[in-house]
């Protein structure tokens, strides 16, 4: 043992990654991760990929409004909207808001839910009672109307969805993580840590949180889909942020412009498909986490 530090550090790193445990054993989960990877690349390089400014009103060469052009016409890959905007560029930029909303909302939900769950489960007593009654209140609030009310009180913004999810959707995560913590708390090694003098904070960080992380990721990955769907619903209902392009906004725009009667499928089918793709990718990934957590589910 010449240098005892090196193997230990490597082990710590490995453990950190093992704690993240990406579900790489399940083909569907890999597909989900691939879809996410693709959308993340598109979102990052949106300015380079998009051919036009998504909000710019375009004109044809003979100074006519470039409205309702079919895909390929005049070089517009996916055609244009009734207002003469490029559908392809909107679709590309839409991935940005979808991911930003999805990931921040998922992060908030997983973070708040995990903290509430671990604290309630570990400390028990009145802390537990208080937090779980709060969760009951959150369960009682209907989600979509709450977002609409929030949008009415605050400026319409894509962040309303994130705020609403952070305020309400932690409830499921919190409940599940609490029950997991309750079982972890009674493990002999947690007791052993207490006897060896570890503080509550240290026990939580060292012995509880690593075992709870996969569950947090599971609920986080479910929350991504929820957030994107909610944003799309809110935008479709017209309570969204009119200045930022999202897939929900595209659907609303198409709906308001009677795209269906004009048979402009190129306009509303792609954003719909994107929503379906990214939401189902989230569920595929969460399914992978579920398999890690509950291996016996497999038939």
């Amino acid at each position, binding site marked *: *043992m010449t240098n*005892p530090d090196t*193997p*230990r550090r490597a*082990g710590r790193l490995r*453990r950190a990654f093992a704690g993240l445990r990406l579900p790489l054993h399940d083909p569907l989960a890999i597909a989900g991760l691939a879809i996410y990877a693709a959308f993340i690349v598109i979102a990052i390089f949106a300015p380079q990929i998009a051919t036009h400014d998504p909000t710019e009103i375009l004109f044809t060469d003979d100074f006519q409004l470039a409205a309702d052009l079919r895909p390929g016409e005049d070089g517009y890959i996916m055609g244009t909207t009734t207002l003469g905007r490029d559908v392809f560029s909107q679709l590309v930029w839409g991935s940005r808001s979808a991911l930003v909303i999805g990931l921040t909302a998922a992060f908030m939900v997983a973070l708040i839910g995990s903290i509430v769950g671990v604290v309630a489960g570990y400390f028990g007593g009145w802390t537990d009672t208080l937090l779980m009654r709060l969760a009951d209140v959150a369960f009682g609030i209907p989600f979509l109307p709450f977002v609409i009310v929030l949008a009415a009180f605050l400026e319409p913004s894509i962040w309303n969805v994130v705020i609403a999810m952070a305020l309400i959707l932690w409830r499921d995560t919190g409940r599940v993580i609490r029950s997991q913590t309750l079982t972890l708390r009674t*493990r*002999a*090694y947690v*007791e*052993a*840590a*207490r*006897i*060896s*003098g*570890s*503080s509550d904070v*240290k026990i939580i960080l*060292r*012995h509880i949180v*690593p075992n709870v992380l996969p569950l947090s990721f599971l609920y986080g990955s479910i929350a991504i889909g929820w957030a994107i769907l909610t944003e799309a619903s809110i935008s479709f209902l017209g309570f969204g942020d009119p200045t930022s392009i999202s897939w929900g906004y595209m659907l609303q725009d198409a709906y308001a412009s009677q795209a269906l009667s004009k048979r402009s499928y190129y306009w509303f089918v792609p954003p719909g498909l994107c929503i379906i793709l990214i939401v189902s990718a989230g569920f595929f990934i969460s399914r992978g986490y579920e398999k890690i957590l509950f291996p016996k589910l497999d038939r």
Partner: protein
Amino acid sequence: MTETEALVRVEGARLHYPIGGIVSAMRGLPSAVKAVDGISFTLHRGESVGLLGESGCGKTSTGRLLLKLDDPTDGHITFDGEDITTIRGEALRRFRTRAQLIFQNPFEALNPRFTIRAALSEPLENARIPRAEREARIHRVMDLVRLPDAAQFLDRYPHQLSGGQLQRIVMARALILEPDFVVADEPVSMLDVSVRAGVLNVFREVRARMGLTAVYISHDLALVRYVCERTIVMYLGRIVEDGPTEDLVREPLHPYTKALVAAVPVPHPDQSHDPLPIGRGAPDPRNPPSGCSFRDRCPMAHARCAVEEPGPSRVGQRLVHCHLYDQADTRPAARGTPA
């Protein structure tokens, strides 16, 4: 009992676990399990005491009280003159470095995610032992528990070790801070018979070498006899007999102790051979009998036992909680402080 300094003093400790709810309370059902129901004893420095009794008699709960893993519902426990039922913060941290537990199940007492080195480092970190000193202490304690080739174990994970090795690691973890007081909760019950003796010998040796005050919790009289000079027999949350192990084995006084001694399967020349017929099952701990809790299984029970709870009576060096020995209190032989 020889007059040595008291390390741990338990005075009328009770530990009641609440059960049931409003509905069962209205139906007049008991509202608590009395896991420990008013016990008192003193542990002297360097003494090794066996806590003996059948399942559910409260011996593990007593151990938990001694280590402040649970706080007593009633009564006091002092450790080195300090009341541990109320301590917190820095005082509690100091107590945690001085009183340790050796777990029953070594397979669960170590976090599977941590290497042995990390497991052994945890108490050292908490006691703020400087990093430079830790490795040396780890190696020293590994020698102490007879795992001398420490380097071979330290970077492994618990699942890569055998039960006997794990139990030694658990013991090492308890001993690494050089505590004054150790509670061992059936430390060999989960181990193969073939490795029990090794672990027990390490325990005995370490205890003698470090001058530890130890409580050994077990249901096995033979094991207690092997490691402890004094034995406390518990029944349904109460102490029934407390005295030197050899006396207790040679001439058990309380009917329950008699039954325990008679039940030891190995024939032994200096123990009574007439097995005592007592009822098979222990009564429901939620609803123990009135008076003496042993009376419904006791062949010697009389009317008084149903009414009055027997207090401690001193017989020689022993304390017996049984009405059969009440008169002993008045004898001139009864010296010292009756608890």
